[in-house]
């Protein structure tokens, strides 16, 4: 009972923050709201017993990406041009038609959480039945992420690491060049 209540309240917080992010004009405030959004979704993942995903979300979403966005904001300007006065009817029409097609595409899909869905019939039963025995990890999500899909996770870590190095080089290189110019 209380679990469902926590889920509902956390999800409604998420919706409130998402709307606020769209409506807020100050970019710094938006970054702070992004951080809260990440913390909230990390909490939700935790409630779903996916502690690894929650931890990644907290580290990447609330930690690193907040800092990266703030660093970007410090290097750029945060003014905005006046919104143009024309009515965006054509983009709205395109988006609505695309959304209608996408919703139509979901009709054939099995219902949400259906145990007979193909996605839950392929390897999931083996994970559930043999996971604890084969990997020795008590948490099922951890077993799948760290053991069954270990190479996939390693690749993800490599991608994130490379991206981090690239961004740090871009941000830091500019600063160093500025300093050299000042010396001359």
């Amino acid at each position, binding site marked *: 009972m209380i679990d469902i209540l926590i889920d509902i309240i956390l999800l409604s917080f998420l919706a409130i923050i998402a709307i606020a992010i769209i409506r807020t004009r100050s970019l710094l405030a938006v970054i*702070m709201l992004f951080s809260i959004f990440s913390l909230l979704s990390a909490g939700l993942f935790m409630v779903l017993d996916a502690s690894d995903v929650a931890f990644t979300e907290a580290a990447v979403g609330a930690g690193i990406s907040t800092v990266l966005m703030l660093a970007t904001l410090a290097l750029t300007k945060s003014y905005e041009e006046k919104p143009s006065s024309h009515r965006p009817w054509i983009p709205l029409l395109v988006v609505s038609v695309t959304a209608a097609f996408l919703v139509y595409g979901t009709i054939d899909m099995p219902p949400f959480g259906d145990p007979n869905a193909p996605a839950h019939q392929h390897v999931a039963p083996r994970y559930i039945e043999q996971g604890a025995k084969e990997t020795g990890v008590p948490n099922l999500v951890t077993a799948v992420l760290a053991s069954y899909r270990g190479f996939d996770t390693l690749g993800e870590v490599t991608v994130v690491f490379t991206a981090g190095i690239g961004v740090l080089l871009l941000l*830091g290189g500019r600063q160093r060049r500025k300093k050299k110019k000042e010396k001359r």
Partner: protein
Amino acid sequence: MIYAAAALAILVTMGLALTRALLGPTVYDRILAVNMFGTKTVLLIAVFAFLSDRTDILDIALLYVLINFISVIAVLKLVEQGNFFTSGESTTNKMKSK
């Protein structure tokens, strides 16, 4: 029962912190709200660990505290100096005017 009441109280506090983050006129209000929200998330996870008898996720709550602390320090450093590269003494104050 007591854990459920504690969880509800934490959720209410999260709502208050969220209100401050949404309304907050200055940057520092929002940073404080984010910090408080992170703390409340950690507390909620801790209460939820006892609520659902999964006390192993308490370790992860501890790690959350560390991440939250580091990110708030980083945010404050950026807001104060405008970059990550100068040391603590020089203040360019690029962001302070906002």
